[in-house]
């Protein structure tokens, strides 16, 4: 399956790749943009110019060697701990979900969540600065309380893409988790209706500020307007 390009929440261009290994195993990998030579040289020259300025003022050559060490260590720490190269999601039916982030230095940090612990996969929304962003997250089951949620694990933290315009992403998870209905988390002053269609899944999302839209995932585009503050119920199409 090929790659598609989307724009992430921070404005960078990310490439998405879907693979289906078998009937019950699918992988989704999002590749983040690489480190730009431009920004690297800009930062390095800035640091070295500042160090040279200090050296001219203080006549101490230790400042220059310190600047070199700082640049080197800073770059190594940035590549090893901060710069994410690729984030991937591997869904293996009846085993679990594996989330991997690989960093620019080659380090991979993996988390495997067993299927028994996964309660649901939902789209959640968050307010970031002046806009609302939507992100995919896994809800983990609370062992003590069957209705409760013990933890929310956000996915694709670095390369956030606008999910509601890319139905392909949804279909990966949707097909695996035994055809459940996705219910976004309820936030205080709005409620949402959940609907199920005859084929595929249908997700309704009521946002804050009165945006209402319905995204039908596997079959076509349907828009449906509904009023806010309704109780939860089921409506058949």
């Amino acid at each position, binding site marked *: 399956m090929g790659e598609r390009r989307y724009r992430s929440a921070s404005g960078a261009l990310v490439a998405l790749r879907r693979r289906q*290994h*078998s*009937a*019950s*195993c699918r*992988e989704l990998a999002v590749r983040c943009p690489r480190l730009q030579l431009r920004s690297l040289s800009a930062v390095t020259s800035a640091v070295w110019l500042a160090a040279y300025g200090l050296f001219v003022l203080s006549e101490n050559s230790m400042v220059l060697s310190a600047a070199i060490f700082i640049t080197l260590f800073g770059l190594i720490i940035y590549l090893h701990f901060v710069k994410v190269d690729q984030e991937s999601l*591997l869904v*293996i*039916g*009846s*085993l679990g979900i*594996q989330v*991997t982030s690989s960093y620019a230095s080659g380090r991979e940090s*993996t*988390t*495997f969540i*067993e299927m*028994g*612990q996964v309660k649901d996969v939902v789209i959640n929304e968050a307010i970031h600065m002046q806009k609302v962003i939507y992100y995919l997250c896994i809800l983990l089951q609370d*062992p*003590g309380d069957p209705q409760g949620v*013990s*933890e929310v694990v956000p996915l694709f933290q670095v390369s956030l893409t606008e999910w509601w315009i890319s139905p392909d992403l949804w279909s990966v998870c949707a097909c695996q988790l035994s055809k459940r209905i996705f219910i976004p988390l309820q936030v205080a002053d709005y409620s949402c209706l959940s609907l199920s269609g005859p084929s595929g899944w249908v997700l309704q999302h009521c946002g804050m500020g009165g945006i209402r839209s319905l995204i039908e995932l596997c079959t076509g585009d349907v828009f449906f307007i509904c009023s806010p503050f309704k109780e939860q119920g089921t409506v058949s199409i």
Partner: protein
Amino acid sequence: MVLKVFFPSCCSSAESGILIGRWISEQNSAVILAVVHFPFIPVQVKQYLSEVQRVTKVSVSVLGSWSNSKQEKEESLSEFLEDLGTIFSHEPWIQISKEGDSKFWSCSTLQKQSNNPKEEEIILVYYDQRKVMLSHLHPPLATATSTDHKADDASKLSAVFDTVAKSKILFMTDRYDDGPIKLTHWQSDGVEASIIVELMKQASVPACMLLTFLLSLISGICRSRVLKFWPLSFLWSKLSTCEQLGHRLQHLQVISSNKKAQNQTQLMRKANIFVSLLIDVALGILLMSWLYRKNRIGHLADTLIPVADHVAEELQDLLQWLMGAPAGLKMNRALDQVLGRFFLYHIHLWISYIHLMSPFIEMILWYVGLSACLGLTVALCILSDIIALLTFHIYCFYVYGARLYCLKIYGLSSLWRLFRGKKWNVLRQRVDSCSYDLDQLFIGTLLFTILLFLLPTTALYYLVFTLLRLLVVIVQGLIHLLVDLIDSLPLYSIILRLCRSYRLAAGVKFRVLEQQDGKPLRLLMQVNPLSYGSVIQTYRLPTYSCYPKDSWTSLCKKLFLGELIYPWKHKGEKQD
């Protein structure tokens, strides 16, 4: 449901045979432990398996057949393997076959008593048997605290890990043993053993007994009545060196006990304590050798008295400054002189005592320095105690200043109430109004004015000595922090995580291997090691000191009111 087969990667090149392992029916997964080769007598195999089941409490059974043919698939062999399914009845009967050097195996199941004959999907998960056997799965910290976890809620992977770990006895026979059953597993090429480990196991028993005997002697001496008389017991409780030595004695007792460790946590704790003690003593001996080379300890002793003198001189200068007009403030002359002279005399006494002790200092320090061989922590505690002893006069001044200031504040607050016509009701713990006589009011107001105008002088002395005391407390606190760090760091766990990271597992990770259409899904399961932060959090050793529980606001309140502060307290000490 999907059928999951956990296959050990060491059996990939084994000869044809039957698969033995454990079938976990609630998860629809089969954990294969070994391959039994032809020829075998089915009765003997069943006997062997029941023996293994009895010892390990793991329900090991025959799960299916494995055929590894170099040429094309033989029809007769496949029929023979199917017939085996009737001898060892197991639902479902798993048949895995590998042709030549192909990476892609075919895997099928035979269900005799199934209602729906639809083909279920099979996932083949390869695992490294040795690593899975040796690793210890750590549950996430949140779920570790909830103890009412039912066994059927336990994660699937922990069942797999448990199965492999408990079947150790199955892996004890290798192919050089003459037995009726020929197995292939990770140790079938030869059982691993290390002669050093065996020797150490033999030597550890008498060593432990000797250590226990010595420790019982030492603890008997420590608990004897001679050392419990009042001045001595007070001294022992104040010196942090004794606390540290007691703590280390406890550690030694834990190591030298001859009870075997029951579970992983106890084993890791013992190992951590042992390595921590070893490193501590090694660093202490290093420090000692550095101190005693070129007679550095003699130089240290020589500089000790001049340093004490210098500190006393600085204090005298400070007091002279306070007796004058410090920072331009105008003090009450008479009170100033009294307090200043009192403290100056105190310093004079202190200097005389130090000078009296000076010929013995070098010898005392030389012998005390020898105790650094007990460990670096002991040396640091001795340093902290020496600092406490040298700055004892600062502590005394702080106490005098604080008590005076405290008295003054209480007097002022009570007389202020009298000034306003109120009184503190001790019974009701509140302020009540009260009518005073005229002479009471007169004397009260007079005393109040006197105390108020003497307040700046006392407050200044209190401020100066409190700051000095806080400085000393901070220095001592930093040393104790370092001692705590050395005490509680689980070095063995960190080294294990560095060198044998598969032993401490936080979970697993899967890698999808090459696929081919029509063949089952192939995954490689690897151990995901615990992060260093979780290692330290899980395995850190408990220490005896507790950090200050006072928040900043209560500390400031105590300072304002003049109450004595003891920021570092040890567990088990009575609160003042």
